[in-house]
């Protein structure tokens, strides 16, 4: 029982970080009807901004995180929207998808070129304290990761549902033309969406890098897992991305212990296939009409 409890909690902690990345897929899908295949690299990059702050500029950890957040908002939010999405979107979804794939490669290779190909140690945000709860070793790091991720996602949900700006963003996502007629500043709302995605990516990066270590190739794994999580949960629902992320984190852990360590990485894909066959819109997603 203690083992099961520990597996569930560490699965939820890892899954909550996947969920942060998965929410990014959902946000950008709603804002631009496209899939950002550079999302994994968006989570990889802020960790290196933090390291630059600490090692090159000599800033303390928390100041470096703030520095990374600002840089991420500029590079992964503003510049991504202005330099990649806006020029490509008029040409259709497919060119934009390809552009995000190219962007992912560019970010990865740039980090490799300027910071190095080897993994870098990344400081832990939470103390290395471990609690014994009913025989299970529960680390403060897991509790912290889970709490911060959940707060970020719940905060986002509240922002979107309870504030005027949030509702304007939702209206823009649902029907930008009608939203504009109703006086919503659609361009600004879309920009907010990109900035929120950049901020969430920074949070995910800071939480996961002490475990993964900071490495240029981290985005490959993270991007894939988050993509699967977004599909499993429902690509057009933030709460779907949350459920998808948590589910994958837990299933990964449980399958490694109770099914097969060798085939653990196949389990999320098996889940993905089942979901696509049984409920194509995802666990919490809603069906979207398509006209031809």
């Amino acid at each position, binding site marked *: 029982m203690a083992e099961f409890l520990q597996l569930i909690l560490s699965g939820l902690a890892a899954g909550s970080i996947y969920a942060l990345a998965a929410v990014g897929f959902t946000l950008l899908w709603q804002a631009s009807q496209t899939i950002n295949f550079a999302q994994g690299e968006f989570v990889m990059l802020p960790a290196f901004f933090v390291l630059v702050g600490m090692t090159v500029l000599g800033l303390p950890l928390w100041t470096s995180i703030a520095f990374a957040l600002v840089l991420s908002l500029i590079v992964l939010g503003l510049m991504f929207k202005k330099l990649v999405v806006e020029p490509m979107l008029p040409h259709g979804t497919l060119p934009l998808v390809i552009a995000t794939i190219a962007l992912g490669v560019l970010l990865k290779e740039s980090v490799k070129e300027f910071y190095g*190909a080897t993994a870098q140690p990344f400081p832990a945000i939470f103390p290395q304290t471990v609690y014994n709860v009913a025989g299970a070793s529960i*680390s403060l790091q897991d509790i912290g990761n889970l709490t911060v991720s959940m707060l970020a996602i719940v905060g986002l949900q509240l922002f979107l549902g309870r504030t005027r700006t949030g509702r304007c963003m939702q209206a823009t996502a649902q029907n930008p033309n009608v939203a504009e007629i109703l006086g919503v500043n659609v361009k600004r709302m879309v920009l907010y969406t990109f900035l929120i995605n950049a901020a969430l990516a920074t949070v995910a990066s800071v939480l996961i890098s002490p*475990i*993964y*270590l900071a490495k240029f190739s981290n985005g490959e794994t993270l991007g894939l897992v988050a993509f699967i999580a977004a599909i499993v949960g429902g690509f057009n629902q933030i709460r779907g991305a949350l459920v998808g992320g948590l589910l994958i984190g837990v299933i990964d852990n449980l399958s*490694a*212990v109770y099914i097969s360590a060798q085939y653990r990485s196949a389990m999320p894909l098996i889940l993905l296939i089942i979901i696509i066959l049984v409920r194509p819109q995802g666990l919490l997603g809603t069906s979207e009409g398509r006209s031809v």
Partner: protein
Amino acid sequence: MLRTFLGATAVALVLSAIPALGEVKVGSIIELSGPGAAAGTNFHDGVKMGFEEINAAGGVLGEQVQLSEYDSQTDPQVSRAMVQKAIDDGVYVITGTVFSSSTVVNMLVAQQAGIPQFTGSEAPSITQKGNPYIFRTTFGAQKGMPKVVKYMAEEMGVKKVAIVWANTEFGKGGYGAFMDEARNYGIEIVADLPTEQAQTDFSADVLKAKNSGADAVFVYLTEEESARFLREAQKQSIGLPLVGETTLIGAKVIQLAGDAASGAMGHVGLTADAGIPAITEMVDRFKAKYNYTPDHNAIKGYTAAWTIKCVTEMVGSTDSQAIADKMHGLTLTTDECPGVLMDATWDETGEMSRESFFVEVENGKQTVKAILPPN
């Protein structure tokens, strides 16, 4: 005017037709990116420093060594293509690769071309395929495992062990060798945990090892995975001795894992903290040059460069076949070839023998607990 022009053209043509003199080519095929970058960069920097010192001291047979690097990207197929490219570029000897999964593939290309290859790989299978052109720069897992298992059984009193290993060519080789030795010493395997290359989450593996009832955990992963495992083990307060080979306790792992590496122990063929003056001096020069602490891979690379110089000069030419022939059964002592840092012997399969160390990580560095004789 025309005569001057024709004369200058003729001189230029003659000069361009003369082959470059005073230069010998060596190819470094190495993991500079991908999961093996930590090990590969160390190895390559060691090779580079070795040849720079050799060139500064007059080169090989009086000629300067031109070292060309080829990034294998830790991809066996790319490494194979890079070995072919190096051979096409005219190298007479090759260093690398470090990852066994790559070496078992690319060494066939060097074998076909008859080019001696000095590898940093440790999988037992590499020297068991009858390839007369492959030579190790440290001993294979089948040589190291008897030493480490003997130490675990006799010095640590381990009777039950959980083994966490990389499901790769490197990992399978070490895993097989460890299992054979564990059987010999009557050690029971209570948890058998294969992991994937570049695995990031070790929470389930640590938990299984922790709850397995083992006296110790044997960890046989590559450097970055080892660091992640150590961090997770610390997070879960594993409370068991963590024992491994060089890849658990190398300098890069200690840097990545931080405090979590404290107490990890294992067997290393080469260590910067061995207290051997030649190694200490080499490590100091390396740190001054590259601004990081070298691990065993860097020392392997450095000794590979000096081995190449010494054996080439023993042969008296850059004849690849003669060098390969000379290497079999060769013993290089530090008296005749100081750059090898420790006396070493190569057998008929290219396998290497020399003294080694059992170390424990204390205060962020390796502390030698025992010196283990050659086997």
